[in-house]
C-alpha cells in the first residue's frame, strides 16, 4: 500500500512537485506519465527515501518513509531508470548482497528462480560491467524482487530491453501485482500503460492533472482515428492545461 499526502518537493526555490496526493492499493498498478520535468522521478525518489520531501507525508506499507525509513524500505523494491550496479560484483553476488542487506534467509532458491525467469542463469558469474544495458536492467529487477516487497517502484523499466525481455518484465509485473504488491510505473511508453496499468496519473509541471482508474480515463477521452485512447487522453490533458 502506498499513500502520498500533500507531497511537495522544492529544489532551491524551484517546485519540482506541488501538493501531490494519491494512494495505490495492493494489487493495483499505477502508471505515472507526463512530459520531461513533470516530477515523476522526483516522486519515485521521494517515495523510496532518496530525496527528502519538502512537505507532506509518504507512506510505504503503513510506514512513513521519513519517520520510519528502515521499516518502510524493507517493504520496498525500487528499479531506477539507469540502474547503477556494482561493477566488481557478479550477477549472483548482487543477489547475495541484496539478500544480506534485506536479511533474506535461504535466498538461494528464490535467487535461482529469479535468474531463470529473467534468463540470467548463464550469466550468474559474469561481472556486471560486461553486461548489456538490458541485462543490467534485468539484474536490477531481480534484486528488487528478491525480498518479495509489498511495494515496487519502476522508473522506465523497459529501457534497453529486447522484445523477449519486455514481455518477460511485463509478465513479472503482472504476477507481482496479482500476488498483492502495490506497483508504480513511470514511463513515456503509453502502450505499456494500456496493457499493464489499472490506474493512471498524469503529471505536468509538478502538478497532478488527472488521477483515476485507467478505464475511467479512457472512457472520458475516447479514441481518435489516428491514435490510441490513452494517447488521446494524454495529449488532451497535458495540452489543455498548457494552453490554459
Amino acid at each position: 500500500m502506498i499513500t502520498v499526502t500533500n507531497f511537495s518537493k522544492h529544489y532551491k526555490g524551484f517546485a519540482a512537485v506541488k501538493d501531490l496526493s494519491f494512494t495505490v492499493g495492493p494489487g493495483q498498478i499505477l502508471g505515472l506519465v507526463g512530459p520531461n520535468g513533470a516530477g515523476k522521478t522526483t516522486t519515485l525518489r521521494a517515495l523510496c527515501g532518496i530525496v527528502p520531501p519538502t512537505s507532506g507525508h509518504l507512506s510505504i506499507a503503513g510506514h512513513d518513509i521519513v519517520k520510519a525509513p528502515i521499516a518502510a524500505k524493507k517493504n520496498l523494491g525500487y528499479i531506477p531508470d539507469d540502474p547503477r550496479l556494482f561493477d566488481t560484483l557478479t550477477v549472483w553476488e548482487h543477489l547475495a548482497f541484496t539478500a544480506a542487506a534485506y536479511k533474506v534467509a535461504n535466498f538461494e532458491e528464490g535467487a535461482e528462480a529469479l535468474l531463470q525467469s529473467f534468463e540470467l542463469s548463464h550469466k550468474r558469474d559474469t561481472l556486471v560491467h560486461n553486461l548489456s544495458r538490458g541485462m543490467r536492467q534485468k539484474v536490477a529487477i531481480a534484486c528488487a524482487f528478491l525480498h518479495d516487497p509489498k511495494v515496487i517502484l519502476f522508473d522506465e523499466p523497459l529501457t534497453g530491453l529486447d522484445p523477449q525481455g519486455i514481455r518477460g518484465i511485463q509478465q513479472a509485473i503482472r504476477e507481482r501485482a496479482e500476488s498483492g504488491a502495490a506497483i508504480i510505473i513511470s514511463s513515456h511508453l503509453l502502450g505499456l500503460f494500456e496493457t499493464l496499468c489499472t490506474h493512471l496519473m498524469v503529471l505536468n509541471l509538478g502538478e497532478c492533472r488527472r488521477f483515476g482508474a485507467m478505464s475511467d480515463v479512457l472512457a472520458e477521452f475516447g479514441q481518435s482515428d489516428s491514435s490510441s485512447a490513452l494517447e488521446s487522453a494524454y495529449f488532451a490533458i497535458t495540452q489543455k492545461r498548457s494552453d490554459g
Partner: protein
Amino acid sequence: MRGGLRLRLMQLVSLRGALLFVALGGIIWLLIASGQLDPTAQLFGGASLDSQAIRAEIATFMPLGMLGMTLLTVLLSTGPSFHFSPTEVNLLFVGPFSRRDLIIYKFIAYAAGAALSATLIAPFAQSQTGSAFSAFTATFLTLLFVQLNSAAVGMAWQAFEGNRLARLKWPVTALVCAIALAAMIHAWAVPDRSISGLISDVRHSWIGTIILMPYIVFAELFLARAHFPDLALWAAIAILINVLLLRAVIKLDRRTSEFSLREDTRLSDRWERMKQGGSFWATERSEIPSIRSAPTLGGLGPIAWRQAIKAARNSSKLIVIFIVGAACAGPLSSMAGVSITGKHGLLMLYFFFGFSLPRTLICDFRGDLSRMETYKTLPIAPWRICLGQLVVQVLLSYVIALTMIVSLLLFEDSLGAPVALALAAFALPLTLLIYAVENTIFLLFPAKLVPMGRADFEFLGRSLIEFILKTVVILIAVALAIGVGVFTLLTLGSTLVLSGLASWVSLTLIAGLAMIVMQFAFRRFVVAEAFD
C-alpha cells in the same frame, strides 16, 4: 584547438573554478615567496645536499633515466600517447578536422597542462637552476619532450610491430637485461668498483654520450648557469627536438590511426572505471567464480563485503605494490642514511598516508558517487552504512602502515620496540580519522575523483584545499590528544603509559566524533541535487 582552449577558460569563468584557481595561485605564490625568503629551505631538505653533487647526479642519471623511460615505452606501451575520449571521438573525428589538426589540438591541451605542472614544480627547482624562470623553462620543455618522445617512440614501434624482426623484442630485451645484470654483479663483486660508478662510466663514455645525446640536452637545461647564452642555447635545441618529434608524431599517426582508435576505447573504459574509484589496473576479466553469500552483521556486513570484493578485484595489484613499498621503507631509508622518524621523514610519511594513499586506493564512498541512490534505498541504518564503507579502506591502510612500522623497526636503529608499539596503536584511530574526514568532505561537497585533463584548475585547486582542510583537522585532533596526554602526565604524575593511553583514548574519541559527522553528511546527501 579553440574549443579546447574555450573549455579550459570556461572552467576559470565559473565562480567555483575561479575561486579554486585563485586559491591555487595563492598557494603557489606562498611557495615561491617562502622560497625567496629562505632560499635554502626545501621541502625535503634537498638544499642541505652538496649542490655540485646534485649537478653531477643530474648530468649522469637524468639522461639515463629518460632513455630507460623510452625503452619501457617500447616494451610496455599498448596504446597511443595522445588519447581521445569517446566524446572527442564522436564529436571531433566526424567534424571538419584533419588528423593533423586533432593531434595539434591534443598537443596544445597537453602543453597547457605541462605549463601548469612546470609552474607548480618551478618553486621547488629554482634553488637548483638559479631562477624560477629557468626552472620553469627546463621543466616545461622536458615535460613536452617526455610526452612527444613516448608518443613518437610508441607509434614508431606500433608501425614496426608487423615486421618479422619485431618478434626479437623480448629476446633482445632479455639479452640486454642479462648483460646489464652481469655488469652490475661484476661491479658489486670487484673491490674499488660500485654500481653507481659503473653507470657513471657508461653515461660519460663516448658511445654513451652519442646514444644519450637527445636526452643530455634536457639535462643541460637544468644545469644551465646563466639565462644567456647557456639556457637560451639549450632551450633552442630542446624546442627544435620537440618540433621534430611533433612532426614525426603527425606523420606516424597516419599509419597507426586504426590501432589508436581501438586503444582509445580500451583506455576510455579503464578511465571510466577509475572515475568510479577503481584502479587503472583493475581486472579486465568478464567472468569470475561468484561468492555464494554475503555476511549480514546487522547490515554492516554486505556493505563491507562489497568493498572488500572491490578492493580484491579492482586494486589487488595496487595493494601489493603499496605493501611491498612499505616493507622496503626500512631498508631504503637505512641505505640512504635518511631517518624516516626525523622531521622530513615524518612529513613525507604524512604526505603518503594523508594524500597519496587516500587518492590512489579508494574503497569507500568516494568511489560510489553514482551509486548513492542504491545506498539511500537500503533498509540499513546510516551509521552502519558509513562504518561498512570505511572498514575495508581503514584496515587496508592500517595494514600498509603496520608493514612500514615493522620494516622500520627491523632496519632503523632510532626506532625501538616501545615507540613502534605506540605508533602501531596510534595508527589505527589516526587512519580512521583521516578517512572519516576525507569521506565527510566528499559527502558534503561531492566531486569527481580524477581530473578532466591536466589543466583541470578546479580539480587541482579542490585537491589542495581538501588536503589543507584535512591537515588542519588532523593537526587539531593530534594536538588535542597530545594535550590530554600531557595534562594526564602533569596532574597524575604517573608513567608515560597512562598518559599515552589517555592520548590514544582521546584520539579514538575524536575519530568516533568524525564518524558521527560523516553519518550526518551521508544523511543530508541528496542524490538529485548532486547530479541534476
